């Protein structure tokens, strides 16, 4: 069998998963997409392992071993992931990724007020901006 098929398939699957991760709103859907990506990798591993096992007489089957590894870890990961999603859900009442914005910059004290600072002295403006951010935090 032509090695390109599994390779291409895994690439496409991986990118579909990637799209899912980047585009989906619900955290669980994101987890599903992550699963897809992991599976794509597994497919690649298996394909290469089978190819190498015969091409390079490699008896170690590291590819398949790593696939098993990945599957196990994926299971653990999905467990923990869902636990976290639930906790986040309970804490925030929502599990939509783009509504969880705690890490955003608190307003833009410098962005809006900054440029209007007195033009007289660069130092003065710099100092005012610094005071304002402390005040805001």
């Amino acid at each position, binding site marked *: 069998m032509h090695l390109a098929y599994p390779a291409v398939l895994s690439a496409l699957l991986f990118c579909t998963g990637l799209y899912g991760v980047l585009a989906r709103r619900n955290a669980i859907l994101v987890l599903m997409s992550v699963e897809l990506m992991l599976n794509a990798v597994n497919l690649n591993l298996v394909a290469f392992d089978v190819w190498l096992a015969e091409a390079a007489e490699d008896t170690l089957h590291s590819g398949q071993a790593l696939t098993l590894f990945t599957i196990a870890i994926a299971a653990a990961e999905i467990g923990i992931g869902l636990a976290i999603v639930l906790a986040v859900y309970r804490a925030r009442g929502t599990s939509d990724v783009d509504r969880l914005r705690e890490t955003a910059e608190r307003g833009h004290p410098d962005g809006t007020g900054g440029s209007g600072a007195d033009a*007289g*002295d*660069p*130092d*003065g403006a710099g100092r005012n901006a610094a005071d304002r951010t402390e005040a805001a935090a």
Partner: protein
Amino acid sequence: MQFLLALIVAGPLLGAAAALLPAPPGLKGKSPQQAVLRHGVLVTGVILLAAIVLALGFDHDHPSRIQASTDLSWIPALDVRLHLGVDGISLPLIVLTALLTFLCALHSYFKRPEGPAPQAFVALILVLESGTLATFAVLDLLLFFLAFEMVLIPMYFLIARWGGKDRGPAAWKFILYTLLGSVVMLLGLLLVGLDSGTFDMVALASDNGRSLSASVQVTAALAIGIGLAVKTPMWPLHTWLPDAHTAAPTVGSVLLAGVLLKMGTYGFVRVLLPIVPDGARTFAPYLAAFAVVGVLYGSLACLALVREGAGGDLKRLIAYSSVGHMGFVLLGIASMTPTGVNGALFANIAHGLITGLLFFLVGALKDRTGSTDLDALAKETGAALYGRAPRFGGLLAFGAVASLGLPGLAGFWGEMLAMFGAFDPAAGLHRGAFLTFTALAAFGTLLTAAYLLLVVRRVCMGAVPEKAPEFADVQGYEFAAWTPLVLLTVLAGLWPAVLLGLTDPAVHKLLAGGAS
């Protein structure tokens, strides 16, 4: 001699450290402040003495040879060497620095600087002195940069903590502006050092840029030139100077104008001209153009400040006059002729002496009347200092006349030779352009004369009001601090060979690439 130069450079640092320690039991003096100020005077006095002995011990027959040199390896990896040495160009500057710092210490001993702890004040001045002396004594590019930078920190604190109105922003702008310039210069220095393999100025100077390709020379010249131009200050990069001077304390102003500006021009002569001559030659016309603009710009700015009702500040005016005088120095350097460079070096020393004196006088004026605002000082007809304090008026008139470049005083020879150099520039430079520059610079001397005499008219002349507030004439200690400057100005004016005899052979050697 070797040890002497090392003492001159390192001495102030040790003094600064000692200044921070509490006074030893024996030398308590009236109060800790008084003790530390006396310590300052002592250390700077010793350094001045050492400088004078160095000058006397200097072999005046061969000023172009590097004398009293110490050459220790410091960073073998980068081939950076602790290479100190002095020749006809740097000796006068070293003596000038030592003298000015001693006079400042003397002045602040009697007139305590108002501001936080004098210990810090003395320590900063000594570090400043060590930095400037090192800049003039060092013969290694990286060391030169190190010393060049070392000076900024103490000056920043001098302005920021002992300065006058809105000193914070002024100090801030001073240090950021100069640092930016120096960073660019560092790139240039590194380019030269790494490209040519060595950082040693003497080797590079005698090699006269033969081992550096043209493009490297041009870029290096531009980078180093910008860094030095900020410090000089050259015309468009000068806006930090008036603010720094207006806010600096008297001692800070004297040292800033008297010594720090010279480091920029000394850098041009010692680093730029000999090491990257082709680069310098490509930028010479632009440098000359900016210099001449600086001359006219500075004097016109002063004319604007001195006008009735312009609310001009005297210290700001003298700062702009420094921009003008430095314009002449740069013109001399840009001409790349021995005459021009001699004129530049002479004008350096002269400007140091005269502007130092002027800043001392304005400082004293500020101490007596509380403000250096011209309109407040000269009500309608003028402050009539001739009448209220004849000696003070006389000295101010002398300072103004010396500053406008009266022949027979130090100011004239520098400017005249710079213009003479520019009149007949080095080969390869556009003669027509330099002729116009000379003419404009000569017209600049007229504008300089105009605003300085207007200052004399508004401050020294005028009807003596009956109930004028009491204006103390020159005190004893002020005389002590100022007479050396006056005497040296007259001496250098009447006998220019005392400086030109030293610099001329050295300049010939530098420009000819170590050949002669």
